[in-house]
């Protein structure tokens, strides 16, 4: 260490010392409960602004935030958005409010709060958020963004994972990891329990031996999977159940894929190059039993072949040549491109060109809005809906920001698919391939999960067009009869070779008892998991409907959001914070994917412990 004259320790920056930051994650049956606590003190002679910012996954719901200043706690209150907005508008008119949450990058949202703290005062921030970890390519992933602004006396990440099925693998890694830091990262699992701990010392946090800046800057990711001796697992606590289903070792159902690709002028350059690279890679991964075709749309529609073609090595070679020669031109005729693809799949099925036991899908990629041919989005949606008639899913990939993502998402959801944004970045080709990998291996189609009618209620989505290898179907619900001893859950689906019915017999009392005996779990986690999943699915359904139905879905989602204290797109959390002896309100809203806003750097940099010349106010995008 170099000799430096310091009046204050390295942990003090601009008069603020951060004692500790602790991120505690408790995961029980894929449901993650995360608590982020930061304690700081103002060592300066004057009042200072102290900021607390946490980046959390977009799929997470904030459930609680409190700020404690010199022993006085200021909690966040979760309210209906409209109610919060009235308060919020009033505060805005007085120039006193700030939005707290904002979309940040691809996967994250940023929660930020800052408060003026008197000289010598201490502040503790605590944020809690919850999330159901989704199984993706065979692993659950918990993502933590680590970005402390300064060195911290006690920095700690602790994750406790409890999985009743038993943990089969567990890993943790960070983008900022060094050999030195590896020594303070521990990860272990045994049976049903897994543990990850990361506690770098102050010196280990330094970006260089005598720096006062932190090396901890990047992504900290925990991945794990569970044992799958049995394809299904049902867990019950306090009258709520969750049913996980992920069979393995089933053959892949052959698929018939039509790629509908936007080659309009706006795709010129890097976008088209990346699209071609992704398609070439996807072609390499195609299996011989699959069928495919390419439909290119600009002002007009062109097809590679008139009908679907089997993915033989010769045909794939020809397909690659075709892809390499794709050129950009003209405008964007989404309607005709999609209609041509749908017609092709329908005709192939009717003419028995494709195997009886196979599944069809359309993957559309566009970077813009329909501006030629049928350009009314409602009409395109109607045309597509009527042509597909629920027979196969439509997946929409939206390339970049200059497009109507809401339209793409609604259209995909209406047709049992999903929309995904492809970010204009160096890895856009990998994003496209990654998406394809997710949907490339259907193991079951037309999956239906059935329970005895009178035994359960309020179940979440229980039918899925596909089950993909490496994913998991999760159904949760409530037991109607609290004295129920057992029930049977059947999962029916069509595999590549056969029709399968998986049966799970559940001994309610035994299952519940086994879980309650575990200290690791937090009592009502299945109920919260059920609420989380229900809200998520109601919000998704809500995108597809209008009028009374939409109102009903909204009301249900809102009721649950308020009951379980989730900050969802229907609720806001109002944080009252003391500012110069005047209480000021801030609102935490959930930003919506459909309405992305360019990330303003001013927002990201405004809170660096220097009191701004005047308070900075911001309203969220939604």
């Amino acid at each position, binding site marked *: 260490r170099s000799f430096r004259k310091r009046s204050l320790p390295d942990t003090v920056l601009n008069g603020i010392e951060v004692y500790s930051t602790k991120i505690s994650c408790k995961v029980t049956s894929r449901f993650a409960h995360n608590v982020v606590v930061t304690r700081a003190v103002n060592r300066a002679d004057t009042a200072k602004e102290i900021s607390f910012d946490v980046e959390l996954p977009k799929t997470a719901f904030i459930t609680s935030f409190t700020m404690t200043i010199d022993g006085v706690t200021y909690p966040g209150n979760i309210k209906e958005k409209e109610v919060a907005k009235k308060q919020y508008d009033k505060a805005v008119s007085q120039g006193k409010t700030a939005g707290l949450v904002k979309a940040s990058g691809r996967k994250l949202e940023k929660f930020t709060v800052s408060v003026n703290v008197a000289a010598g005062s201490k502040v503790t921030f605590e944020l809690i958020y919850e999330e159901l970890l989704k199984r993706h390519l065979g692993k659950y992933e918990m993502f933590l963004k680590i970005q402390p602004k300064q060195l911290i006396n006690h920095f700690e990440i602790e994750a406790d994972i409890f999985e009743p099925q038993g943990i089969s693998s567990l890993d943790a890694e960070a983008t900022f990891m060094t050999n030195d830091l590896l020594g303070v990262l521990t990860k272990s699992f045994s049976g049903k329990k897994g543990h990850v701990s990361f506690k770098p010392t102050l010196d280990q946090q330094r970006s260089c031996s005598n720096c006062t800046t932190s090396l901890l800057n990047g992504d900290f990711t925990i991945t794990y999977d569970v044992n799958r*001796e*049995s*394809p299904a697992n049902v867990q019950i606590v306090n009258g709520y159940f969750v049913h996980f289903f992920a*069979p*393995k*070792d*089933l*053959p892949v159902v052959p698929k018939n894929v039509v790629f509908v690709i936007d080659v309009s002028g706006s795709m010129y350059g890097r976008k088209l190059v990346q699209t071609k690279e992704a398609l070439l890679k996807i072609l390499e991964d195609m299996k011989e039993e699959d069928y495919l075709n390419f439909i290119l749309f600009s002002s007009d529609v062109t097809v590679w072949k008139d009908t679907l073609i089997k993915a033989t090595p010769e045909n794939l070679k020809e397909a690659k040549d075709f892809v390499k020669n794709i050129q950009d031109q003209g405008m964007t005729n989404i309607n005709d491109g999609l209609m041509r693809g749908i017609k092709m799949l329908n005709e192939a099925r009717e003419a028995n060109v494709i195997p009886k036991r196979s599944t069809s899908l359309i993957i559309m990629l566009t970077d813009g809005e329909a501006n030629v041919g049928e350009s009314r989005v409602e009409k395109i949606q109607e045309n597509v809906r009527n042509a597909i008639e629920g027979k196969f899913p439509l997946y929409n990939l939206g390339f970049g920001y200059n497009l109507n993502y809401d339209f793409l998402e609604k259209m995909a959801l209406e047709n049992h698919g999903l929309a995904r944004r492809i970010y204009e970045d160096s890895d856009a080709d990998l994003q496209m391939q990654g998406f394809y990998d997710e949907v490339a291996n259907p193991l079951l189609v037309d999956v239906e999960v059935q329970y005895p009618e009178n035994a359960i209620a309020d179940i979440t989505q229980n039918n899925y067009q596909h089950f993909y290898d490496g994913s998991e179907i999760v159904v949760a619900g409530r037991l109607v009869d609290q004295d129920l001893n057992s029930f049977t859950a059947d999962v029916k689906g069509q*595999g*590549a*070779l*056969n*029709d*399968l*019915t*998986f*049966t*799970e*017999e559940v001994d309610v009392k035994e299952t519940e008892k086994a879980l309650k005996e575990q200290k690791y779990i937090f009592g009502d986690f299945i109920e919260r998991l059920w609420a989380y999943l229900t809200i998520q699915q109601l919000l998704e359904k809500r995108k597809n409907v209008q009028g009374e139905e939409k109102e009903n879905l909204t009301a249900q989602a809102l009721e649950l959001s308020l009951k379980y204290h989730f900050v969802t797109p229907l609720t806001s959390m109002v944080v009252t914070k003391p500012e110069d002896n005047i209480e000021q309100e801030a609102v935490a809203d959930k930003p919506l994917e459909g309405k992305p806003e360019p990330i303003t750097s001013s927002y990201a940099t405004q809170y660096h412990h220097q009191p701004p010349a005047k308070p900075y106010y911001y309203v969220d995008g939604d």
Partner: protein
Amino acid sequence: PHFIIRVPEKEDALCFNINEEPGVVLNLIRDPSTGISISGQIIGEKKVNVKNQKTYFGRLGIVNTRADLKIEVTTQKITLWKGLDQTNFTWMNTVMVKQEGLSLQINRKKNIVVSIGDGVSFVIILHQVWKNLPYHHDFLGLYTVDSHRMSVQTHGLLGQFFHPIDFEVFDVRPGSDPSKPDATMMVKNHKLTVTRGWQKDYRKDPRHGSEVPCWFIHNNGAGLIDGSHTDYIVSDIF
């Protein structure tokens, strides 16, 4: 492994053991007419060099050549092939698999019911033992249902008994074990010394089984089975 042959016409049963080395595969059922055949591979106990080592079936293979179908059942997993395409299950599954010409019901940790073609069914029972037992390990049992649906050409160590069999037992006399009398049996033109005994049928109670009184034919069923038991040794379960 032990074999039990019920003879309804006589309201009695015959039984015999086949003692072979672990690893040996025996042809149990072969029906050239329906294309169905079943073979079983023998496993021994955990510890080798045990005097009078007991043997069991640890792996069974069912083939239906007509439907290009193969099923392999071990004490660990169940694998189903249709042509080259393979589907795997474990004994932890409760699953019904249906495809053209086949119905396969796996009942978690208990049994598998395989129905092929027009209703020939086989039940495979998983006998689970405590994994820390020093000698024994899990093994399989095979039971046929509706064997009359197999053709008259059916053969194999079990299959040959799907056709009616006649036997006579006389001269019942005390045996070396007072509880198990000996007798003379006339079967397939052979005069055999047989012993009255019991064997276990595990269909209903896989844990304890139910005792079936039967006439036990010594020396690997010599005289009862066609040819010698070594004639039924095959190279592979498929």
